[in-house]
């Protein structure tokens, strides 16, 4: 919980400490009520939100305000949800997106 900025000289201290439980790739985690998925995971030092469709390389949030779509995850079975714009809810199941089949590339590789 040390990554959370609970005290701030100008913005003041955070009083709302209601804790929610959710899961990320099956791992049970907690979030402060009002945190986005991206913020709650970062607070737990989890930066990799998904893996690139083709290369499988890890990706995290980039713009944090919904523009870039780098942070998309599957939430309660719904794919391509932006982790930076979605608040954690009690019992939420968040899963990383991973590589996708690329039959055309496989077909090409077999022949070329």
């Amino acid at each position: 919980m040390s990554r959370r900025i609970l005290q701030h000289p100008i913005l003041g201290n955070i009083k709302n400490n209601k804790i929610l439980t959710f899961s990320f790739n099956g791992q049970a985690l907690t979030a402060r009520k009002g945190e986005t998925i991206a913020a709650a995971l970062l607070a737990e030092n989890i930066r990799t939100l998904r893996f690139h469709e083709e290369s499988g390389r890890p990706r995290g949030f980039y713009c944090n305000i919904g523009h870039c779509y780098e942070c998309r995850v599957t939430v309660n079975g719904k794919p391509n949800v932006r982790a930076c714009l979605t608040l954690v809810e009690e019992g939420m199941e968040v899963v990383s997106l991973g590589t996708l089949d690329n039959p055309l590339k496989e077909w090409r590789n077999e022949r070329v």
Partner: protein
Amino acid sequence: MYDVIIIGAGPAGLSAGITCASSGLHVLILDEFMYAGGRLLGQLYQEPDGTWWNGIEESKRLADKAYTLGIDIHLQTTVINLEKQNETWIVYTEKTTYQGKKLLLATGACESPIPIPGWTLPGVMSIGAAQVMTNVHRVKPGEKGIIIGINVLSLAIAMELKLAGIELYSLALPLASEISGDHAKPKPVFTNLLSFSHMAQNPLLRWGGKTLRFSWLQNLVLRMYPKKGLSVAGLPLQIKTAVTEIIGEDKVEGVKLVHLDANGGAIPGSEHEVKVDFVCIAGGLYPLVELAALVGCVFNYIDELGGYVPLHNEYMETTVEGLYVAGNITGIEGAKVAIAQGTVAGKAILHSFGLISEKEVEDAARFVHEVRKNAPIQFHPNIEMGKRRVMEEWGKVMKKKITN
């Protein structure tokens, strides 16, 4: 059916909504984010008089006023399409559709990325992302970071990160490339820095802002600027150092740096590595205009305003009947200008309903210039010139319309 639908609950959209609802119009404001306030939310800086501009409080003040006036604010609502059927605007969101008589786009700005080897690693983020994470969501972007890009936005946010107790190795330049442009050149960065040096606590820079009007003198000082950087208001500014690569296996573990000469050339043998766990890329802002493009607005590329802007007049009317714009969609400026522009758009809408005189719209438009003149910092030093160019282009298009 709403009288006005506003897209964007930032300073421009909220102030326009407040203006319209104060005269009895039925207003809907839509926004993707979970709080009203737009990018005003993250702002936190000290005014020249020492008081703090707290974006969260300013946003709350505007949103409370909007709610009190009975404005419907639908947050976490993403607009995916716009259509005009006869005189009615149809706004499609992911959840439902809305209808309105007038439409105002107050969608704000987007950050320009600067691609650098390794920039897709988790832990690399835009400078605005770090601001929102720190000030709005209250989670540290990391333990120790580096900012790539030295400009007015990155300096302001670096101060905010420092205030929240987040350690920065430095603010440095990106490696020179076709995309990084002037962001990678010490001279333009230094000249730009001098244009807002009145904010700096460092006496050398403060003196420089007043004295270094001559290019040859700037070159001399730039040549003497220390390689290791200069601490300005407690921020380590490395104007003559560039990040060449972001390194790490599955996340950011560090960066490769190289020192530059005064002309931006890499100094052989000066390559070195520094350990950081997050990297912010600050490539500047450009107007977020996609929705205006969907409905056939005329556009112009105006460098001083940050990129392509929908053509508009002093009353924030666009070339499309019944469509208005306000805030950073019309050019990159501060929140106070956006608030003033929102008021103009709101009054122009009220005038179109026959509720107020044109004189009132005119007065509000004049007030925008005043706010702009008194703004403590400007994102582009020639913003007024850019605005004049828009008005000239508007004149040309309107003349064509009349002669046709």
